[in-house]
């Protein structure tokens, strides 16, 4: 996709993406989330194929979910065991997302689609307009980078 095509697509898609984001978030957060997604798509414009509607919509929902999770209130000290488990899960999610955010945008996107949305390779390939082989390679690179980061952190 060329930069001009992307600009045109972004202009066309923006109202619909905002509508999706508003289902989860307030007006300001919805605006920020759509902006964030459009920026990430812009960063991988060279790899995108038209149409990008489905990919953009899935990413907006994904980032809305991420933002909602971050907005969850913190737990009181008297939290039950169940809440403590939940806190541990939240910390794990926080940590892995922070590491994912350091990766190149395409790798971030594929990891999110795979591990949060639970999508198969074929589905991701269709969404991004790429081939399954290319998706596997990118996913492999992303996972290996994460592995190295974890090894460094826990050695």
């Amino acid at each position: 996709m060329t930069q001009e095509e992307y600009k045109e697509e972004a202009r066309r898609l923006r109202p619909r993406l905002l509508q999706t984001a508003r289902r989860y978030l307030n007006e300001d957060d919805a605006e920020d989330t759509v902006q964030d997604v459009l920026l990430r798509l812009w960063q991988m414009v060279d790899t995108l194929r038209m149409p990008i509607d489905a990919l953009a919509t899935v990413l907006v929902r994904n980032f809305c979910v991420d933002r909602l999770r971050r907005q969850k209130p913190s737990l009181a000290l008297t939290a039950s065991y169940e809440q403590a488990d939940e806190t541990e899960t939240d910390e794990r999610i926080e940590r892995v997302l922070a590491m994912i955010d350091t990766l190149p945008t395409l790798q971030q996107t594929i990891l999110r689609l795979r591990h949060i949305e639970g999508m198969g390779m074929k589905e991701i390939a269709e969404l991004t307009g790429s081939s399954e082989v290319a998706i596997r390679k990118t996913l492999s690179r992303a996972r290996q980078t994460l592995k190295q980061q974890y090894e460094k952190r826990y050695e």
Partner: protein
Amino acid sequence: MNNLLRIRTLTDKFFDGDTTPEEEQELYEYYRQPWEQIPDDLRSNCELFRDLAALGSLTPSTLPPPLSTIHHSLSTHRYRWWFAAAAVALVLLVGGATLYHYQSENECVAYIYGERVTDRDVVLGEMQKTMMAMTADGSDVVEEQLKAMFGD
């Protein structure tokens, strides 16, 4: 032992991007067990797999309903109150208008020497006086009035 071999193979497949979602679930299950039960060479993967398993729980279905749904139910609730308030307002309006109409139809108004008077007692008193004056010397009054209007 066979299981361990399978886990090693699946772990390699995972980092090659070749695992299916079911195989990934199998790996998450394996790496969830206590640290001591995992061979040394695989231990370094534990935290990553545990974190990725947690990330998998972050699905839209586990989150609160979208704002639009909440807003919809709130709106429905609010609509009921608005409807009740509108019904009460309508009853008051119709009742008030009917009462006003009834009262204005029975209103006593008279212009006595150019002045508007609405006091029922005063108006009735004036009417009575006029009637009495007419019955006392009615013919003279009429005659005087006719002369005043048409001349002699």
